[in-house]
């Protein structure tokens, strides 16, 4: 694809996406790329480019989620659903992000937002989402609590270290059986143990709503979001590429964000 086509395709996608959000009642935002920055933010946004002017710290926008959180608390405190499309800078690279942030979101709001994004992608790409991967760190907390496991087990789960989990837990342990099973079998296996928990019920409800038969729905306890501020349910959805077309998750207890991948003109 030539640069012209890539640029035009990205803008077309951005425009159609924002129109979709507008129709769905989201508040659209476009803001200054230079933002006030607290050094405490560095942990969650380590790739932000930070600088100082007149004894005040600033950062170039590196993540719309952080931008929207500041925006929401400072300006439109009554609005709870925001949509955006615009550039961000991380380390030495700039690229475009598009997505939504929902505040005071309940399970129904989150599921609706995920489904709206899946439908948008499938309509635009004229193909179905092939794979959806989901996890919730609270499930690992539940395993640690139920089986009285050491916190060290968390890292072995995240890295899917099957051999070490077998050594530590034994091959008959429920958790070892789950991690070493095919990832598409994990949902049923975890449901048998924690099916009545809020975390699993939210995942089950989303699974029920994804009726497209070509979409493989995967729960994997080892799946990690690249955004380390997600602390509840998070997911990635894939078309045919190895890069996710959608990714999102819960943070700060009741906020929920979804990002649309715009690399290579979007919808890769």
């Amino acid at each position, binding site marked *: 694809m030539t640069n012209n086509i890539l640029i035009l395709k990205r803008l077309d996608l951005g425009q159609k996406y924002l129109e979709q959000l507008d129709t769905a009642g989201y508040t659209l935002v476009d803001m200054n790329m230079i933002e006030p920055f607290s050094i405490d933010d560095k942990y969650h946004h380590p790739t932000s480019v930070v600088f100082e002017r007149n004894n005040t710290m600033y950062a170039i926008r590196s993540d719309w989620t952080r931008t929207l959180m500041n925006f929401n608390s400072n300006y439109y405190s009554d609005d709870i659903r925001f949509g955006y499309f615009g550039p961000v800078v991380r380390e030495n690279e700039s690229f475009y992000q598009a997505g939504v942030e929902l505040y005071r979101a309940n399970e129904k709001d989150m599921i609706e937002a995920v489904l709206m994004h899946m439908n948008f992608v499938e309509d635009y790409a004229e193909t179905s989402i092939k794979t959806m991967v989901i996890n919730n760190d609270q499930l690992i907390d539940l395993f640690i609590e139920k089986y009285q496991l050491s916190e060290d087990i968390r890292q072995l789960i995240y890295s899917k270290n099957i051999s070490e989990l077998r050594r530590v837990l034994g091959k008959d342990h429920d958790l070892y059986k789950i991690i070493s099973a095919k990832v598409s079998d994990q949902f049923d296996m975890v449901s048998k143990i924690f099916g009545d928990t809020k975390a699993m019920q939210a995942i089950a409800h989303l699974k029920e709503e994804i009726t497209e038969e070509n979409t*493989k729905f995967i729960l994997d306890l080892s799946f990690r979001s690249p955004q380390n501020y997600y602390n509840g349910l998070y997911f990635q959805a894939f078309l045919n590429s190895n890069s996710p077309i959608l990714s999102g998750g819960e943070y700060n207890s009741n906020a929920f964000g979804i990002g649309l991948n715009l690399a290579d003109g979007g919808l890769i």
Partner: protein
Amino acid sequence: MITVALSKGRLFDDFVSYLEKYELYKYSKVLQDESRTLYTIVDNIRFIFAKGPDVPVYVERGVADIGIVGSDIIEEEVFSYLNVSELPFGKCHFALAGPPNVEHFNTVASKYTNIARKYFNTQQQPVSLIHLNGSVELAPILGLADGIVDIVQTGNTLRDNGLIEYEKILDVQARLIANKQTFYTKEDSIYEFLSEIGVIE
């Protein structure tokens, strides 16, 4: 089709022997014949032959779905992948070594300075580290360093150069790593291969 990145060298030979032990001759025979090329395809598997430190790069970037690599490589550098399983070959260890009668190591040479740094930090031992790309045994012989941190397999190389092992630092063995995305998008083919080579039952 899935892609498996194999480390060239000793680990490659060990992997071929491992395949033979599992009677997976369809792979081992082709790999033995083709190891001087860049890649080869057997059924649904494309094997690519890479330098050890490049294997995690291929896997992290999704060029390869699976990698067979020494744990020395993945302990030294930080990559993002699934660290799925140890494999029962390629066993050796990192050691602190030097000429006999060294009472205190002030300067140590190594190709693996991150592993060495971690070890000396754990020991709360202030040491100056020098990074070398190979033949680290030369460093104490020529007076560049008091000792070395390096991989020891049989100990013959140390003995041949008049060095002795002072401390075992870390066990090393082959590991199977996997890309974080294609583990989902190519699940069936990946699990079939993992099962075939005995990583999962």
